[in-house]
């Protein structure tokens, strides 16, 4: 029985990592209605930049700040060059633009910093903790703690600050927000910068876990089932979705894998999300749009 809980908790904690990436999506979707496919590429870019700066001798916190600044600069650039010309276009066009963007950022990241795998040490001890007879990874616990802090900070940002109010207004109706004087470009820049920051945190944690390599950008695909279960516009939903996906993936791998075949964690999240959607087409926390004709 303890083994089951160990697997379950391991899965939940892994799921937290997915949530971190998903939160970046949610932020951008909440504020601009854009499904930012480039989020994964941004995570990769952040991680690569950070680790390359470290390798060139920069101390940890300097590298962090430098990377953060780069991400913010990247966000501003994206807003100016890609988003502004495409304002008011249908969502599918924006989605495809972020597809193109992800290609660009991936290419840029590897052109600048090379394609080898980099190891990343965050200084978190590697020995597992033993709690009630179960072995839990300290790293995973640290990641969960970071995620929790991030979520609390973001909730405060969205719900308690003026800029949070503007963000929610813009997500609802950009044209109307313009009409009441909200500076759209500034809001989008803020959102993408925050998403960049979240991407950095996610990138660091994922990089420490897997090593910083190209396949990091494929993590974005796993975030899609997370978002579907949790709803595209809810941060809390991203957490819950991530937990569910992480747990399901791990449990399926350990318990169903020997029966059906190995490697099923590649598709279990998607099939799960699909079945979920059939029952709840708007996700757990998503808003059900009432179409008025």
């Amino acid at each position: 029985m303890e083994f089951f809980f160990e697997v379950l908790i391991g899965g939940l904690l892994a799921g937290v990592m997915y949530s971190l990436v998903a939160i970046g999506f949610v932020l951008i979707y909440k504020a601009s209605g854009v499904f930012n496919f480039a989020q994964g590429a941004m995570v990769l870019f952040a991680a690569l930049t950070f680790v390359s700066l470290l390798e060139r001798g920069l101390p940890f916190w300097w590298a962090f700040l430098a990377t953060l600044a780069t991400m913010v600069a990247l966000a501003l650039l994206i807003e100016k060059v890609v988003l502004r010309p495409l304002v008011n276009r249908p969502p599918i066009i924006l989605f495809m633009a972020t597809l193109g963007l992800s290609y660009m950022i991936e290419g840029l990241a590897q052109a600048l910093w090379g394609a080898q795998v980099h190891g990343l040490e965050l200084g978190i001890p590697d020995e597992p903790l033993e709690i009630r007879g179960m072995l839990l990874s300290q790293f995973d616990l640290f990641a969960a703690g970071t995620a929790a802090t991030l979520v609390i900070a973001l909730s405060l940002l969205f719900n308690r600050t003026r800029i949070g109010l503007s963000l929610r207004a813009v997500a609802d109706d950009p044209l109307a927000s313009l009409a009441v004087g909200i500076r759209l470009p500034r809001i989008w820049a803020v959102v993408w910068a925050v998403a960049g920051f979240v991407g950095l945190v996610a990138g660091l944690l994922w990089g420490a876990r897997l090593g910083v390599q190209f396949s990091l950008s494929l993590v974005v695909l796993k975030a899609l089932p997370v978002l579907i279960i949790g709803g595209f516009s809810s941060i809390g939903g991203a957490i819950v979705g991530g937990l569910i996906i992480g747990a399901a993936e791990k449990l399926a791998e350990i318990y169903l894998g020997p029966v059906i075949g190995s490697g099923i964690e590649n598709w279990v999240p998607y099939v799960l999300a699909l079945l979920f959607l059939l029952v709840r087409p708007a996700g757990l926390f998503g808003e059900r749009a009432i179409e008025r004709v």
Partner: protein
Amino acid sequence: MLYREAGQLATRYAAERRIFRLRQDRIGLLALLAFAFIGVPLLGNDYWFSAILIPFLVLSLAGLGLNLLTGYAGQLSLGSAAFMAVGAFAAYNLQLRIPGMPLLLSFALGGVVAAAVALLFGLPSLRIKGFYLLVSTLAAQFVVEWVLTKFSWFTNDNASGVITSPPLIIAGLNFSSPAGRYLLTLSLVVLLFWLGKNLVRSELGRNWMAVRDMDTAAAVIGIRLFKAKLLAFAISGFYLGIAGSLWAFAYLGTVEPHGFDLSRSFQVLFIIIIGGLGSVAGNFFGAAFIVLFPILLGNLSALLPVGLVDSGQLENIQKMLFGALIIAFLIKEPEGLARLWQRFRQRARVWPLRY
């Protein structure tokens, strides 16, 4: 002056409905077909056939398949490569396990199997709309890839998981030479494009566009959304299945699951974005772009001083430029190259006048 349209008025509806209404266009098309069927095989060399023309034709077909589903019926899909894989593997297994099976029939049945799989993964579209539908086709992509890799029956228990395609013999004629493969591909592509063009101009095509543009209104005027969406998935799956068979049999010469991975699905999606969503001819433009762009880039970099750009960097630069081009297209001409071609043709029709 090129286009003397005076006197070219249709007196019957059927005449107005022709795909190429103007005589000049029809002459142009005949010339193009003649060149493609007769001229190219005489003039072309093996490199052009194998590396450029055949992939160009097959990717155009794949693009049309996806365009029917996404560009006309409005159902977003990232599973194109999976359906191509199903078609290829079904055709391969039919050829292998049924003695005396005609090649074209294997292709067709492979397409039918792909249609069935696409239909299955398209069922959720009845409940789910928009971006959420992506997860269904993504699931298709990953499940199909997993099934084909995991169960070695599909690859005839081949140790390496890669199988060579059987020789292309139709009615006693051997099409295995580069020119032969080219002609086989060309014939199938021309046929399927003709059928596709008829389809998008038919009632079903209009129903698809209605579902794409406003499905509540479509339901109100009596269009069965259920039937339209499922037919879109099935027919698109059929086209992609045939494209997959051609890709494996006529282009690569091998059949393996990893050639039909997610990046292939993205490639097909890019073809229809660049070529033009909701266009038939646009798929040719998009495929041409996708096939020629890397080659052009490679040739350009060969002109630069040696050592400035190595092959690894070249790939990254290609990626960046590609992404940038996609964004540029979406900003400048979201209806793709097809629209640019249309504008050019409008100009040509009134040339040498301006408008």
